[in-house]
């Protein structure tokens, strides 16, 4: 469809513009010029008509008509204008709507970008108070679920498709039938939700059908936070943590940076106090006690690894240490002491940690993880209260009592034959219900089963009804965020497959007069706010209801705490023969709901870097003791280490020939066995086995496969029982002779003493604020003569011609990434993938090192093999000013623009790949096999189908290609959906083309155009700071990325780059990257037993380079050396 730009006629009123002096004077010549078609003399035969002349002119005209004028014809396509133009719609201009991504009992507020009616990108809503618009990887990737080809697309009864209306009428009829028996025999199985509309409907149905029963199940449940808070304070409250106010944080197995509810908001708060602007700033300190190496552990200043079951006694020890200093807790202390005595831990660690927390006082915060037993949570709340933190670092918000029934009760009821109709709203219990329930069999005992599901998956109802669930971007809804703010879940598109929502199903069964989700949500809003239409519109526009956040309530400890704690049962410490299994939520697939989401399948686990699979994680010591796995403890350097006299430990599982073919092991627990590849993670607690949930789904869809017909990963739910939801003792692990190929995106885990990530402890930073630049390698010497002239940087033999543009161009783009703030959550990876149409490549291609992600999250281990530190670094195109990729490209396909961007001309690229070879950061990605056009099945090597012989859907591939070259090999249904997800502003790259981070050039150009429109005839074309946010920056919950115009000294990015922590990676190559990093500061406590004078990576570096001060300056200026030994101020002068 083409749109014709409107003609610009001269306005009838207002100023008239003249075109020439003649027009102004209105001379006869001008009149004649207007009237005559051609200038005088051109249209007449000046000489008498002769045959010769006539033929001459005619032939010339024919020639011109043939050559040039055919192109002037109007296009023959039919151009249809909108008969009714949608309001506020400009063709080609994206629209943005506020919505929210509902999570279990919370929501992430979003702004969703729609292009021609299709949602193409979700972003965090930065308008909401207290949020800067970060999201998590799940919210980013949820967009792709909308276009999932394996979504449920039909209404079925007993497995056969039925008409939508028939199914919906059946719901109405069910409600009407049930009304007679007051709902007896009717059971609902729900997922957690924060939707006020849903609560309202449940209440309404409960009044109408009081006999109906309500159950709730989440395989990974955060309800315990509310439960514990309510227990401790004797009223229904839930905690709302204010990490931004916390200076001392203790995490008791609480992965608040990764796997906890609302991690994106917690990260935002946590990192607020990590971003030191100068060496005078103070920062928070994080202690973590955990079994797995989690993201929280990776960001902790002190990390104690211990079995998950040991966290309870350790919490008790800490509680005793703290509470015994406070008055009024003697009963609690008394109750805790026996628990504390059952655990084993470094006492000094406990006492010093406790001391620090007490010193932190009301600025301390103790968090307990969802997988820990209730008692740990109780202690955390008591400690926060005792430290005076309530009201500072933790608020308690009133909470609505949720549905109480559990899936265990439902299973019992099903088995007893009490359930005539079971309504399952969302969820996938057949796959993820506790194994002891025998859910599939229990469910079959219900008279009728009605399931509302997003996919026809494991829980597909073969006998009964299955209704397709609408995506949240297709349906109306509402939700509350972590602080209780009401947010709308606004659709952007009609349900693609006619799916229905939970609200509609409930309303129909409940016999509500209004069953349209919009009406339901509107009505709820009216009830909450009074119902003004303007308020409703503002609510939808802003994406939140101002002032709707819950007011915190004052709480007092209930008296029964000591009694509640007394009963705590400590599990025996795990041993080699009785290992402890920890079931944990996946960083990629959540509880399995994202199994068919390619973006998340290919997002590497931040710690293991494994994609497309889950692995059985153990510590090096345990692996050694059990004789499983292969661990290259000796060193990765082999002979090299021996030659150079360095003893280095490769702190990663050893890859054989660069690829991970890991031993398959069997874990027997709860009488069940799961089998999967072993993966050794240094820093895991010994005798603990971690099983990641969410994988091994047989019916998730065609993406969730590691090979044809084999689900990706193994299913850990089969070994999970009601009593051992998160921690299961008494497990056995045995090796097998099989191996299993694992696709990991990072083979080598240590930094080899190179100054890539630069870290210091806060103390060193204070002493040596420019330590990051001092870690530069061999700065080029500056001659003394030049130095006297004030030259600080060695001049180049050849001036970079692009430098001239620095003065001329309006903008110079640059980026800075704060490594102190980056927690490694990988939200940026998914955001980039979504924004820039980055294709997924599948497991086999990842194993071949061909993943396409434009950002890597580099993860390095450092320090002690058993309890190492982890450092993260997002690595993306550095946009070097002297880019090594540019001068080796033989066809000029990668070049620099005037604003300092290293740009790719995809159309020009022939794919020699030399640019990648010469890129020191290796951030360029090559499309080896038409990843956009080939389905995953066709990306399994080394025998790939060629279109010359292959058929797709019974048609010869070449003839398909001839008809429509862009769809490639994908089946039509898949292709039609997939192409809707693409960002129209970014070209979809074909095979044989190199691609890389563009600093989201489409956003830059969009902002520049908008600014030029705004500037009209003024010179004000500089884009104001903060207008452009790259996709990664926007998604970052930690605000660890600054992007903008480095020419403007007041821009955020310029301020960051002016900080003393700023450095460039591989500075010595003089590539002059536009992306620089702020060195990471750790805040270790000197009194702690695991205190390290230098962070692990710095220590490795120091082992090679003596000290921070001496290096790099000794070569070129001996007299500088003395300066560095003196005061900080002088040092700064010397270095700059």
């Amino acid at each position, binding site marked *: 469809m083409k749109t014709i730009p409107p003609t610009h006629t001269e306005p009838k009123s207002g100023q008239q513009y003249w075109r020439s002096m003649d027009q102004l004077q209105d001379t006869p010549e001008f009149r004649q010029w207007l009237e005559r078609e051609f200038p005088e003399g051109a249209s007449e035969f000046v000489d008498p008509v002769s045959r010769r002349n006539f033929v001459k002119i005619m032939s010339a005209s024919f020639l011109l008509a043939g050559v040039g004028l055919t192109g002037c014809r109007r296009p023959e396509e039919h151009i249809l204008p909108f008969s009714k133009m949608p309001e506020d719609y400009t063709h080609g201009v994206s629209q943005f709507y506020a919505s929210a991504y509902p999570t279990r009992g919370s929501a992430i507020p979003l702004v969703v970008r729609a292009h021609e009616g299709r949602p193409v990108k979700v972003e965090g809503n930065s308008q909401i108070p207290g949020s800067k618009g970060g999201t998590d990887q799940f919210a980013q990737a949820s967009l792709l679920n909308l276009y999932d080809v394996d979504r449920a697309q039909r209404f079925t009864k007993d497995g056969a498709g039925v008409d939508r209306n028939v199914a919906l009428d059946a719901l109405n009829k069910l409600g009407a039938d049930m009304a007679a028996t007051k709902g007896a025999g009717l059971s609902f199985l729900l997922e957690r939700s924060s939707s006020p509309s849903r609560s309202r409907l449940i209440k309404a149905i409960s009044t109408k059908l009081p006999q109906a029963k309500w159950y709730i199940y989440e395989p990974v449940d955060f309800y315990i936070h509310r439960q514990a808070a309510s227990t401790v304070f004797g009223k229904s409250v839930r905690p709302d943590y204010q990490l931004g106010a916390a200076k001392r944080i203790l995490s008791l197995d609480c992965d608040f940076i990764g796997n906890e509810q609302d991690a994106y908001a917690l990260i935002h708060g946590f990192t607020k106090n990590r971003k030191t602007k100068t060496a005078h700033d103070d920062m928070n300190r994080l202690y973590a006690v955990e079994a797995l190496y989690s993201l929280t552990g990776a960001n902790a200043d002190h990390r104690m690894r211990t079995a998950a079951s040991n966290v309870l006694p350790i919490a008790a020890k800490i509680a005793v240490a703290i509470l015994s200093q406070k008055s009024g807790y003697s009963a609690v202390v008394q109750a805790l002491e026996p628990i504390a005595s059952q655990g084993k831990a470094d006492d000094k660690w406990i006492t010093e940690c406790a001391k620090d927390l007490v010193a932190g006082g009301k600025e301390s915060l103790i968090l307990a993880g969802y997988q820990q037993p209730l008692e740990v949570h109780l202690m955390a709340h008591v400690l926060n209260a005792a430290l005076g933190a309530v009201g500072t670092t933790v608020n308690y918000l009133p909470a609505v009592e949720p549905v109480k029934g559990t899936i265990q009760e439902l299973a019992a009821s099903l088995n007893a034959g009490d359930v005539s109709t079971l309504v399952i709203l969302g969820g996938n219990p057949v796959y993820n219900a506790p194994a002891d329930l025998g859910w599939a069999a229990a469910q079959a005992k219900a008279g009728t089963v009605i399931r509302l599901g997003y996919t026809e998956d494991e829980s597909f109802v073969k006998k009964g009804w299955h209704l397709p669930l609408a995506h949240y971007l297709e349906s109306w809804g509402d939700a509350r965020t972590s602080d209780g703010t009401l947010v709308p879940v606004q659709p952007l598109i009609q349900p693609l497959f006619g799916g229905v929502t939970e609200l509609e199903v409930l309303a129909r069964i409940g016999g509500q007069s209004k069953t349209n989700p919009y009406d339901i949500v509107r009505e709820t809003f009216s009830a909450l706010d009074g119902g003004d239409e303007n308020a409703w519109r503002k609510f939808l526009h802003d994406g939140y209801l101002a002032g709707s956040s819950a007011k915190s309530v004052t709480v007092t400890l209930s008296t029964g705490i000591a009694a509640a704690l007394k009963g705590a049962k400590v599990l025996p410490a795990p041993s080699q023969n009785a290992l402890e299994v920890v079931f944990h939520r996946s960083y990629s697939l959540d509880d399995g709901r994202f199994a068919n989401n390619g973006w998340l399948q290919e997002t590497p686990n931040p710690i293991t870097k494994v994609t497309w699979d889950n692995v059985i994680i153990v510590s090096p010591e345990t692996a050694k003791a059990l004789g499983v796995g292969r661990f290259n403890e000796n060193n990765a350097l*082999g*002979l*090299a280490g*021996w*030659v150079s006299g360095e003893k280095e430990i490769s702190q990663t599982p050893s*890859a054989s*020939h*660069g690829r991970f073919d890991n031993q398959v092991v069997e874990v027997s627990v709860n009488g069940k066995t799961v089998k999967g590849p072993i993966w050794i993670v240094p820093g895991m607690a010994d005798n603990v086995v971690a099983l990641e949930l969410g994988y091994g789904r047989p019916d998730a869809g065609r993406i969730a496969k590691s090979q044809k017909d084999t689900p990706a990963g193994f299913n850990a739910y089969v070994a999970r029982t009601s009593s051992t939801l998160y921690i299961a003792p008494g497990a056995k692990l045995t090796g097998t002779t099989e191996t299993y190929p694992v696709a990991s995106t*990072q*083979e*080598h*885990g*240590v*930094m*080899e*003493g*190179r100054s890539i990530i630069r870290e210091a402890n806060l103390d060193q930073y204070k002493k040596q604020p420019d330590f990051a630049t001092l870690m530069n390698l*061999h700065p080029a010497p500056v001659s003394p003569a030049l130095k006297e002239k004030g030259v600080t940087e060695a001049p180049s033999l050849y001036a970079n011609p692009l430098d001239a543009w620095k003065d001329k161009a309006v903008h110079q783009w640059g980026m800075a990434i704060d490594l102190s703030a980056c927690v490694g959550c990988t939200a940026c990876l998914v955001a980039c993938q979504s924004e820039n149409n980055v294709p997924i490549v599948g497991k086999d*291609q990842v194993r*071949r*090192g*061909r*993943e396409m992600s434009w950002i890597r999250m*580099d993860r390095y281990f450092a320090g002690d093999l058993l309890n190492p530190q982890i450092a993260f670094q997002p*690595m993306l195109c550095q946009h070097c000013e002297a880019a*090594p990729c540019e*001068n*080796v*490209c*033989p*066809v*000029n396909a990668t070049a620099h623009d005037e604003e300092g961007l290293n740009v790719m001309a995809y159309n*020009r690229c*022939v*794919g*020699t*790949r*030399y640019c*990648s*070879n*010469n890129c*020191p950061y*290796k951030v360029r*990605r*090559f*499309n*080896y*096999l*038409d990843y956009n056009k080939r389905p995953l099945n066709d990306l399994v*090597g*080394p025998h*790939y*189908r*060629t279109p*010359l012989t292959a058929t797709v859907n019974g048609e010869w591939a070449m003839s398909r290609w001839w008809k429509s070259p862009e769809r490639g090999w994908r089946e039509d249904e898949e292709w039609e959906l997939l192409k809707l997800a693409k960002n129209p502003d970014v070209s979809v790259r*074909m095979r*044989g*083309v*190199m691609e890389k981070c563009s600093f989201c050039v489409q956003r830059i150009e969009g902002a520049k155009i908008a600014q030029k429109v705004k500037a009209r005839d003024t010179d004000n074309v500089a884009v104001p700071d903060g207008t452009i946010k790259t996709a990664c920056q926007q998604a970052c919950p930690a605000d660890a990325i600054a992007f903008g115009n480095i020419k403007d000294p007041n821009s955020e990015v310029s301020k960051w780059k002016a900080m003393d922590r700023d450095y460039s990676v591989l500075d010595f*190559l003089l590539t002059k990257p536009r992306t620089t990093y702020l060195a990471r500061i750790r805040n270790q406590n000197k009194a702690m037993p695991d205190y390290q004078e230098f962070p692990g990576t710095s220590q490795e570096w120091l082992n090679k380079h003596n000290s921070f001060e001496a290096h790099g300056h000794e070569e070129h200026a001996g007299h500088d050396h003395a300066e560095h030994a003196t005061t900080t101020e002088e040092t700064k002068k010397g270095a700059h």
Partner: protein
Amino acid sequence: MSDAAAIPANFKVQAPPVELEREVLVNKGRDIGWLSDRVASVIEGKTPWWWWAMMIPSLLLYGAMGAMIVYQISVGVGVWGNSHPVMWGWDIINFVWWIGIGHAGTLISAILFLLRQKWRTSINRASEAMTIFAVMCAGIYPALHVGRIWYDWYLFPIPNSNAIWPQFRSPLMWDVFAVSTYFTVSVLFWFMGLIPDLAVMRDRAKTKLRKFAYGIFSFGWTGSNRHWSNYEKAYLLLAGLSTPLVLSVHSIVSLDFAVSQLPGWHTTIFPPYFVAGAVFSGFGMVLTLLIPLRTLCKLEDIITMRHIDLMCKVILATGSIVGYAYIMELFIAWYSGSPFERYAFLNRISGPYYWGYLWMFLPNVIIPQLFWFKWFRSNLKVIFILSLIVNIGMWFERFVIIVTSLHRDFLPANWGWYSPTWVDILMYLGTFGQFFTLFLLFMRFIPMIAICEVKAITPQADPHHPLGGAKDGGHH
């Protein structure tokens, strides 16, 4: 002539003393007629069984290469083992390897010609053919290894409506010119030298077709003095033109690596070291080809043990240069003090690809040292095996340079691995198919020894030789 008249009647050419006598280049006093018959008989005789035994597998492999090319173009570069970070694999290894082999021919024909090394004559034709075919094998790879083959023409400075030119700063661009120039000049040079011999074949031809075909390509050569005079001048000019190309091609190929800033690639020693290596591997290949050929085609009297001995000495010399370069690389890496450089070389020696380094170092540096001993230089079987080893060693040199440098560079997080796929292997074998197909056709249809030139260096042709014509001051 007046000069002749000045020679006294009793003047007699003395035979040189025995210790100064050079070994003759054509054995057994074979006369000129024998030479023509012998060389021509390879073409005119019945096709020997071994020719078919070689030709059939070669053609099959050649066909396999064609199939692999079609497969690769239709599917993508991903059918090879290239990965990230090792974006170049067997494609560039094989390109550099074949280009290296293509060095001996022009070196023999041009540089040795200018240096008046008469022994070149009996091996130059075959070596030049080898050069051309090797460059043809090499040329396949840069053309095919790119992601979008149909845009290869972007690499040439063709005026276009977008006014985009190639990037003249890129070594790959230089490669395009260097290799195409080298190939063109080599073909011209080879063909120039062929004209008198093709005329010989024309004159001997018994069938019309042969007469016609050789007639066309011999350009009406009559052997007149004027023809010979023009021919010699042109030959000298082309030799002069080719000589710098011998040095430039592999220097420029080496710049593909030296210009980058990858540790292990970024080194100034590359141009001379690559040229030495190329000559080294080129002579290896010449030996590999000629040792069996001289027996099979009964050319032992033309390609004599002296020739083989001399070629062994060239291998010894260039192998030692290469060895020096290897050791110097290590020294410089250590001496630079750069941890990245040091790591790159330690990783070569002892990293996961250490076997590649061993396969490079032993065959290229240690094993050629055996040629210090006369026994090794005179034992054909040993020489044949050593020449194969040299070629394997030089293949591994390229493997070490390309793969081990790329697989572990600056940031350990992106370290990776490379292994070839079946397509890589079959395609490489396929280039042998092409090479041998062309070479077998060459030896069957074109005189594989420069008949005219060999005649000129027979003792009989030397007026100063006792066997030569200028006996007793008389005229020949």
